């Protein structure tokens, strides 16, 4: 097992009160697996990635839980230790819109080489050679090394950012909407690249997106997030072919299909206010299968099948 998260909480302090963005999340990922974290905006999926990589803003009310990476408890590390031992070396992140990750006034090749020079104490020449190797692998022409970010297309910038994430060979890669800013044909190219890299390097990935169809293009397991919690978890086959939670069912039903005919349904209402969430189950105000108990008590965690987990009263014992 590469990553084991237990009871992760990330709460922000806002003017209106404490916002529970990540409210008790647990998950496990094995080596070489891709976990798709799926949910609407505001469900806490980006906060999850920030909570793991400690890229936190200053208004944090609570950040607790256990994050074990290759057996090492990350939450016990100091900020300095995290920065020197974990960032880029053990966990790398690829964000949406590479513009946020690339320095506009430094040539991109040098930016990708930087972690090699700093963390692995390579000479500039050695580092450059390694970077050129990775550029070639991700499908970038070698002269990209000397370019500035603004000279590159969206697809090329995203490949540079992927190269940067891979340069120290980290066991875990977190990607947050890595293809949302790209044209669909370039998105398909980047997804193929990620599939190849995953296979070649036995990479473990967390792939965050609001698009469940895109998630199915790479994820072995899926975790559906809602209101700061994972409300359904299982293999991609389980989550897509046999979704248990009403929200997951609606999420799938709202996707317009290209290859067959469906009348997509929408989910009425809006995601919950995480400062004053609903009583009981967060989803109950929008749930098409809501029962009386759902508004009164938090739903239990149930395991309907091996490896499948859902938080819903439909599968629990209402007398608990």
């Amino acid at each position: 097992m590469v990553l084991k998260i237990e009871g992760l909480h990330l709460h922000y302090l806002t003017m209106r009160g404490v916002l529970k963005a990540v409210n008790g999340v647990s998950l496990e990922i094995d080596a070489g697996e891709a976990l798709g974290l799926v949910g609407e905006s505001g469900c806490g999926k980006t906060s999850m990635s920030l909570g793991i990589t400690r890229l936190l803003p200053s208004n944090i009310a609570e950040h607790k839980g256990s994050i074990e990476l290759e057996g090492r408890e990350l939450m016990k590390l100091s900020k300095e230790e995290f920065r020197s031992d974990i960032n880029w070396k053990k966990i790398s992140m690829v964000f949406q819109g590479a513009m946020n990750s690339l320095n506009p006034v430094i040539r991109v090749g040098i930016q990708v080489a930087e972690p090699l020079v700093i963390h692995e104490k390579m000479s500039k020449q050695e580092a450059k050679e390694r970077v050129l190797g990775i550029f070639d692998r991700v499908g970038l022409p070698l002269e990209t090394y000397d370019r500035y970010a603004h000279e590159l297309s969206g697809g090329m910038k995203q490949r540079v950012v992927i190269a940067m994430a891979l340069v120290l060979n980290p066991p875990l890669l977190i990607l947050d909407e890595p293809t949302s800013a790209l044209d669909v044909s370039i998105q398909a190219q980047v997804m193929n690249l990620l599939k190849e890299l995953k296979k070649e390097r036995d990479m473990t990935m967390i792939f965050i997106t609001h698009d469940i169809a895109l998630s199915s293009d790479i994820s072995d397991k899926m975790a559906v997030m809602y209101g700061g919690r994972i409300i359904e978890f299982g293999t991609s086959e389980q989550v897509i072919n046999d979704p248990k939670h009403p929200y997951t069912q609606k999420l799938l039903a709202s996707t317009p299909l290209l290859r067959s005919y469906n009348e997509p349904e929408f989910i009425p209402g809006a995601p919950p206010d995480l400062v004053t969430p609903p009583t009981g189950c967060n989803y109950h105000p929008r749930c098409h299968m809501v029962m009386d108990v759902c508004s009164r008590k938090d739903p239990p965690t149930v395991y309907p099948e091996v490896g499948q987990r859902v938080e819903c009263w439909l599968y629990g014992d209402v007398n608990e």
Partner: protein
Amino acid sequence: MYYTVRQGFFKTVPVKAVDGISMSIEPAETLALVGESGCGKTSLGRTTLRLLEPVGGELIFKGKDITHDSLQSLKWLRKDAQIIFQDPYSSINPFMNIHQIMEEPLIVHKIEDADKRTEMIYRALEEVRLSPVDEIVRKYPHMLSGGQRQRVTFARALLLEPTYIVADEPVSMIDASSRVELLQILRNLQKLHNLSILYITHDISTAKYVSNRLAVMYVGKMVERGDVLKVIDEPLHPYTQGLIASVPDPDPSNRLSYREVIPGEPPNAINPPAGCRFHTRCSHVMPICKEKEPKLIEIKQGQDAACFLYHKEFVEEEQPGDKR
């Protein structure tokens, strides 16, 4: 025939954004314009509203030639033809409340009676299912979600009872699960008001849901066009085929194989390839594709494509300008 566009290059620096497009939109029809960034779809959409002036060709709206009319003389057009933008965060004024935002176009177009204006505003907001209306009108944009803001822009576009609306990527910045509701509203509004809609998008799956016909653009040219279900089920042009292959449906087996991709990157519109603009990325490229540009002609009933793969059966001479 309701609305015809024939255009040559646009702009003096020849960025061939829209390069010889002929098309028309019928009454009460939704035509989807699909393509990736840089294909010219937004430019084409704006030109149909005369927000941009064509450099060549004709623009005919409800029988009137508006190609080169002065913007002053086109005030009437602004009532009859509207636009919905992509970004719900920048297309409505953050310093005005919803009532004021909706009222502005009515005041500009001289609806003098304040009560009448309020009545029109309330009706429009109800039609886009923003309720309770009297609470909504007092809110400021930052108090609404992206989806709600976008509904305000739909409602605002309808106020002056237009015949034609350009919807430029109206749901691209909205969460996937909220898109369907907005598109359903758009579809219902179209039926209710008999609107003609030009639906511009890079997302071909939403195009399938809202439109009757689909036109695919590539670097300033229209490469395929036809009934939406036919084009998606049996795409003729290799680019259309590649576009469709690039888009996943939710399917756990997707991860087990590589997706068929269109290699390379879209060329620059300033210096597009000679001959067929897609030839540099096309897996079916033939020698003629590098030299001559294929014309957009009818290949099957209700489906046109611009591709030499289908030209062996057709005589290669000037077809009268295809007016569909």
